C-alpha cells in the first residue's frame, strides 16, 4: 500500500493539521514507511478471533446522577487563550 500526495493532504485536512508544501513529500515518505510495517499484520488469519480492547474485559461503571464537581470556571479559563465574560472566544462561525 502507498498513500498518494492527495491522500496525505486529505488526512491532514481531517486531522486539522496544516502541512506546509515542503512538509508534504517528507510526510508521505514517512507514512508509507510506517504503513509498510503495519501491512505485515494483514498476512495473519484472524477469522473468529474476538477483538480485545481491555485485558480485564471491564464493563463500563455507572455513577450516581448527582453533582460531584465544584464550579472552577475561573481557574479553567485563566489558562485559555482568549475568554470574555466567562466565554471562550473563537473566530465568528455564523454570519
Amino acid at each position, binding site marked *: 500500500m502507498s*498513500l498518494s500526495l492527495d*491522500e*496525505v493532504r486529505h*488526512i*491532514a485536512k*481531517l*486531522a*486539522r*493539521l*496544516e*502541512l*506546509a508544501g515542503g512538509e508534504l513529500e517528507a*510526510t508521505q515518505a*514517512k*507514512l508509507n*514507511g*510506517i*504503513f*509498510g*510495517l*503495519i*501491512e*505485515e*499484520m*494483514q498476512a*495473519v488469519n*484472524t477469522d473468529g*478471533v*474476538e*477483538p*480485545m*480492547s*481491555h*485485558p*480485564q474485559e*471491564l464493563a*463500563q*461503571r455507572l*455513577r450516581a446522577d448527582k453533582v460531584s464537581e465544584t464550579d*472552577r470556571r475561573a*481557574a*479553567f479559563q*485563566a*489558562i*485559555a*487563550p*482568549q475568554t470574555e465574560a466567562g466565554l*471562550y472566544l*473563537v*473566530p465568528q*462561525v455564523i454570519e
Partner: protein
Amino acid sequence: MIDSSLKEIAAALRAKTVSAVELATDSLARIDAGNATINAFITVDRDGALAAARAADARLAAGSAGPLTGIPMAHKDVFCTEGVLTTCGSKMLSNFVSPYDAHVVTLLKAAGAVMVGKTNMDEFAMGSSNENSHFGPVRNPWNTDCVPGGSSGGSAAAVAARMVPMATGTDTGGSIRQPAALCGITGIKPTYGTVSRYGMIAYASSLDQGGAFARTAEDCALMLSAMSGHDPRDSTSLERDAEDYTRDLAQPLAGLRIGLPTEFFAEGMSDDVRAAVEAALAEYRKLGAVTVEVSLPNARLAIPAYYVIAPAEASSNLSRFDGVRYGHRAAEYGDLNDMYCKSRAQGFGAEVKLRILTGTYVLSHGYYDAYYIKAQKLRRLIAQDFAAAFEKCDVIAGPTSPTVAFGIGEKSSDPVQMYLSDIYTIAVNLAGLPGLAHPAGFGAGGLPVGLQLIGNYFGEARLLGVAHQFQQSTDWHARKPAV
C-alpha cells in the same frame, strides 16, 4: 544520602541525622549541577519542594510520617501538577499550568514525598529516545552522546544521575522499561488498570500505564505501593484494593520457573546484550531458579498492531488540543478551521503529527475494520500466547532492548528503525501485563544492559521480589555513572 535506599533515607529521617529540607536542598543542588548537561528536567519547583519538605519535617516530628515522607522525587511531565507547569514535552502545552493534580500526584503528595520538579520526555510520550521533546533531548548520564531511551527518558536519567532517588514514568509501549534499561536503573510498569490515568495526559488510553523508577526493585516496590489503587475517576481503573508490593521481597527463588521466549532469543539481539542477558540468567539459575523454553509466536506482530492501535487512540485523544480552552493558539489565523489547523501545526512536533496522521487514516471511513479491529484481534492472539506461556512458567525473562543506548541522532530520521527498538516491550502493553527492567551488566561502550521480567496479571509483587533477590547477590544496580 540521595544515593541510599529509600528505607535507609526513611530511617535517617526518623533518626534525625538528616531532614527533609536538607534532602530537598541536596536534590536541587544536584539538579543545578547536572541538568545543563543531562537536560532531565523541564521544570524545577524549588519553592514548592522546600515547602513540601518543611511540611514533611513537621509530619516526621509529629510521628505521622509514612515510608516515603520527606523523600525527594520527580514526576514525568505527563502528570498534571496543580499550579506547576505541565508541558508533556510539547510546545502545545508549553504555557499550561495545570489547574488540578493527577491522581498519582495526589497520592504521592499525601504520602509526603517531596516533588522537586517535572522531567523531560518525548512529546506526548511518543518516542523511544527522548529526542522528540520540544525542550531538547535528554542525554544519557553514562555517555552524554547517547540517548537515555524514551519516552520517560528524563525520569530515568534523573534517577541514574542520582538527582532524585525515585521518579514516576508512564509506559505505553516500553516507555518505563526501555529507559530504565538504557540508564542502568530499575523500572516497573504494573498490570494495566493498576495505576490511575486521571490527570495523566493521554496518548493511547487502552495501553497507557503509570509506574515507577528507582535504583532498586525494593525502592520501586515502596513507590508503587503508594501510587496504586482504585480511582473512580479513571473508567479503566481496576476495582482492587491498594497492595503492599514489598510483600514478596524476601521470597527465595528456589524452584522459580523462568520462561525464555524462543522468539526473544532469536536474531535481532546484539551480541553484547545477549552476553549480559545470558549471564543474568546464569545468576538466576545459581539462585535456584530453573529456566524453561516458552513460545510467543505472535510477538512479532506486536509492533504492527501497536502502530495501529496507539496512533488511532492518539489521533482521537489529541483532538482536544484545538487552541480554544488551553494550550497553544496560533497568533494569526483566518476562520475557525484555519485557527485549528495552524494552532495544531505549530503546537505539535513532527513525530506527533505523523502518529496523528497514521491514526486518522486507520480510523477513517472504510479502513476501521481493516486496521483497528484487525489490530485488536492480533492483540488477543498476543495475550493468548502469554496465557499459554504462563502455564509453563512463573515469570518470563528476556532482553528489554535489542541494543544498549544508541547515539543521539542515530535513528531519529527513520521512524520505522526507531519503532523496532521496542520489539521486546510492546507485546506486554498489548496484553496488559506487568513488566519490569533491572540492571544486568554492561555492554558495548560500558553502557548498561537491562533484563526484562514479565509477570502474569497482578504479578507485580512477585516480579519485584524476583528482581530484589537478584539484586541481593549482584551489584549492577549499585553502579553509577561518573557524570
